[in-house]
């Protein structure tokens, strides 16, 4: 019995590694935007991004990748957020693919992360503008993407 269990555990480890490889698991530890495009739901957004200003390469690297805008930048927060959404996406993609809406909408959490990231890079510029409407505590406050809607990719993809 113990031998069978031993064999099974070895098999599980083997198949587990292969599954990880087959799902391009390693790519999810990178910052590469192509990793997001592993999932074809992202095809349209990825295409939009590729044609936009943020994907222009400087010294071989795009100005901003998906992660630059969509994840926090503090080490711990970034990996917690990455693990959280990674699990969520894997679950939806495996079991809920058929019921996902055609056009996704950002959650409040996602909106907050994006807003922080706009400011992280464009803070100097933004601080020059009158931004009384951007008080995050106000009801339905505007954010950067309220006006600059198509800057990363077209909305409502």
């Amino acid at each position, binding site marked *: 019995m113990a031998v069978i269990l031993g064999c*099974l555990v070895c098999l599980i480890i083997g198949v587990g590694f292969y599954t990880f490889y087959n*799902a391009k698991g390693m790519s999810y530890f990178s910052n590469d935007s192509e990793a997001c495009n592993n999932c074809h739901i992202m095809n349209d957004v990825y295409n939009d991004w590729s044609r936009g200003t943020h994907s222009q390469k400087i010294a071989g690297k795009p100005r901003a990748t998906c992660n630059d805008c969509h994840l926090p930048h503090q080490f711990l927060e970034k990996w917690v957020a990455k693990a959280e959404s990674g699990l969520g996406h894997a679950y939806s993609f495996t079991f809920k693919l058929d019921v996902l809406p055609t056009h996704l909408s950002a959650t409040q959490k996602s909106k907050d992360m994006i807003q922080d990231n706009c400011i992280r890079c464009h803070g100097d510029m933004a601080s020059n503008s009158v931004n009384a409407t951007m008080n995050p505590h106000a009801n339905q406050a505007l954010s950067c993407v309220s006006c600059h809607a198509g800057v990363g990719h077209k909305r409502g993809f």
Partner: protein
Amino acid sequence: MQKKSPLLPILVVVAVIVLAGLLWLNSDITKKQNDSVGGIASKGFVEMSDDNPTFDHWGKNFPDYLDMYLTVENETPISTEFGGNLAYSKLIRYPQLTILWAGYPFSIDANEERGHFWVQVDQMDTARNNKDFLNAHGFAGFGGQPTACMNCHSGWSPWLLENVGIGDTPREKWVSFNSTKYWTMIKNIPAVEGIEEGSPAHSGPHGGKRMGVTCADCHNPNDMQLRLTRQAAINALVDFRGYEPDPVTGVKASREEMRTLVCSQCHVEYYFKPTGEKVKVMGESIANDASKKWWNGTQKTYDEFDSWRDGNKPTEIEVDGIELVFPWSAWEKNKPFRIEMFDDHYEGVRAIFDKDWEHKITKAPMLKIQHPESELYSGGVHAANGVSCADCHMPYLRKGAKKVTQHNITSPLQDINAACKSCHTQSESYLKAQILDIQKSIAYDLRSAEYATVSLINDIKILREELAKLPEYQSNGKVDDKKISETLKEPLELHRKGQMRGDFVGAENSTGFHNPREASRMLLQAVEMAKEGQIKLVEIANEKGIKNFKTSNLGFEDIQKLNPGEIKYNIDLNGNKAGDRYYKHEEINGPAPKELLDLDKNIKPYNYKEVDSKTSSY
């Protein structure tokens, strides 16, 4: 011996389950990765041609699209506030229609439509296409529907035009096709896809005689590009609207235009214009069989059945030619449509086509408007921004890894996320509320127009009766209806033109959404014309010395008394007993859902406390 640990077998079982799960996950990942590679099934590709336009055949190459198209065959019909595909009786929901259409077959059978798949099934089932039933229910003069009706209902129509229409030129074949009896034409649909000639399958909706719209109606077999196949649409675009003809795609147009034009092949106003000539068409030998009579004892000239039976054979006969025409002569290319353009067109052809029917109560020469979606939409804000019909009614979806166009063509309200949110970033509930708000407003206008027109009809009826009593309207002891109509010419014209406007919005399937401004503009005219008509009646009554003539102003409760109920046989007919339900399927032609009637009750007059507190139920 040491006692066996119970843990070990449990761990083995768990390990097996984990392993199986992993293997399944693996295959799922691989399957989804492969999904993104192909759009068309590459194995077993079948050749497509216009000789076999069935969706069962073409669909072998496009199984995903066929699945979508056939959704409506088995799904439970869904109603929205003002549309959907639940085939309830419009006459029960809107009883005013029985008066507005009095004397025209629509006044006894009109139900909500239920999608492209069913269009031919429904056309063959409707009481409007049942000569015996109509003859027995007050339409004794009815000659039976022509093939012109079939232009849009069958995917076989282009094949039939080519192969059954008689003549040497395309034009002759075209007129011959339209002028043939509907029930004669339907007998000519070939049996394909292994279907046996004359079998139940051959009579069915899958490739046979009851097949509705199919892939070939909009797509070219060689490269699947969009094309026009309906001659009336090509004629109208070329003759009236400055398009150039094209042998493959019907007319030369951009892909963006085609995404609207393929819908405009059928979703338009049309009429059957007499050509003024005799044409040769296929007839039936039953016309020479003296033992075959209609219910009222007149000779049958065709067998109201979908195949040749009892020795009945095709013959050649001569009949008056008719042609399916879209009334677009005043509508220029790239211009928004205006209702006055129909006035201009129908005035222009009045010498050869003066009416669809004579109104039974007022004796006005009437025009019946039929689903003019293309016309209304053309001037709307969506059209102005380059949005096509397909953008909303056939939105892009993800199916597995593929981007596909929705081919279960239906109300965009069924998938607001896909239909609206490619452009509109607001929430679905917000968008839904906006649509409903527009529709409730237009529904108010439409009910106002309809009730005003019914009131006018009511008053014309009373004044006709009053005038009939006067000696000047009697000749040889009989009432001279013509003379009365002459005196009432102005109100009768106002009846014709005003009702046509209400009819336009009623027959247009968006309750104004396709262009709310134009819809409310023409409905305001309709109300004006009805009221203007009533003023004329009072003037005439005064002039003729008729005392106590008063105009009426009917409302929701008065109109509800006209509810005709479900369609029943009035007499024993063709094996049916008096009182039997006309439709065999319960889901067709029943009453509308109760919520809808509650909504209607509060729309006119507009009870804002009720109507505005409700959010959409779909």
